[in-house]
C-alpha cells in the first residue's frame, strides 16, 4: 500500500517537473504559460492526494457515511485554482502585448531585438 501511495506521489512529482521544465526551458512565451498551468495543476493533485482517505467519500455530510476525505485541501486548492487562472489571464495578456510590441513571442528573438 505504502509503495503504491508513494508511486502516486511520485507520478505527481514527475508531472510537476514536466510542467516546470516547460516553464523554464521553452522559449515560447505562450508555452511557458502552458508549462506554468501544468506545474500548478500537478501541485493541486498533490494537495488533493494528501486529503484522500481510502474508502471515504466527498466531504458533504450525509447520514449514510461516517468517513469523509479532508475538506481543507479542497478549499485551499479551490483558491489556488482561481489564483492560477488569474495568473494565466495576466500572463497571456502580457504575451499579447509583447507580440504587438515586438512581433514575436519567442524569447530569443525578443532578446535579440533589445540588444
Amino acid at each position, binding site marked *: 500500500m505504502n509503495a503504491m*501511495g508513494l508511486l502516486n506521489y511520485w507520478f505527481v512529482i514527475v508531472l510537476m517537473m514536466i510542467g516546470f521544465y516547460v516553464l523554464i526551458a521553452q522559449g515560447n512565451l505562450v508555452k511557458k504559460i502552458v508549462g506554468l498551468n501544468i506545474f500548478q495543476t500537478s501541485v493541486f493533485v498533490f494537495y488533493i492526494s494528501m486529503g484522500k482517505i481510502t474508502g471515504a467519500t466527498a466531504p*458533504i455530510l450525509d447520514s449514510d457515511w461516517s468517513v469523509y476525505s479532508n475538506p*481543507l485541501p479542497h478549499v485551499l486548492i479551490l483558491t489556488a485554482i482561481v*489564483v492560477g487562472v488569474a495568473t494565466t489571464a495576466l500572463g497571456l495578456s502580457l504575451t499579447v502585448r509583447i507580440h504587438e510590441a515586438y512581433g514575436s513571442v519567442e524569447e530569443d528573438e525578443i532578446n535579440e*531585438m533589445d540588444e
Partner: protein
Amino acid sequence: MLVITALIVVRLENLFTVAMVTGIYSLLSAVFFTLLDAVDVAFTEAAVGAGISTVLMLGTLSLVGHQQKKRKTVQWFPLTIVTITGLLLMYGTLDIPPFGEGGNPIHGHATTVHYLEESSHETGMPNVVTSVLASYRGYDTMGETTVIFTAMVGVLLLMSGRKRKPSKDVEGDPSGR
C-alpha cells in the same frame, strides 16, 4: 495518462494543439480529483482549466500566431534544475504519511475534526467544503475574490485602449541592456 498528456504538450509545436491538449490535461485531472473525493475541485478545474484557460489560450493564439519555433530539443541547464528539484521532492516524499490512510496527521488535527464534526451545527451546511470556504476560511476566499479582481484590473490596464506603436528606445538608455 496524465503524464503522457503532459509529455505530449512538451513535444508538440503547434500551439493550437497544445492548448487543446492542455484542456484535455485539465479534464483528466478533474477526473482524478473526483476519484480523490474532491468534487468541488473537480468541478472548478473542469470549468476553469478546461474551459476558461483554454478559451483564453485560444484567444491569445489567434492574436499571436500558433506555430512555435523549432529549437534544440533538450536544454541541459533547465533539465538539471528540474531534475534536482524533482529528486529533492521525491526524497522528501519518502517520509510522507502513507497515501489514503485515515490516521494521518492532517486528518487527526483539531482543525479537520472541527470542520467535520461542528460545521453542520455551526453553519448549517452539509457541504463542508462550502462552509470551510465561505465561513471558516472565508477570509481566504475574500482574498481569492480580490485576486480575480486584481487580474481584471491588470488585464484592463494591459489590454484596453489604443495599441501602442512597437517602438524601441522611446526613452531609456541607448546602450540597451
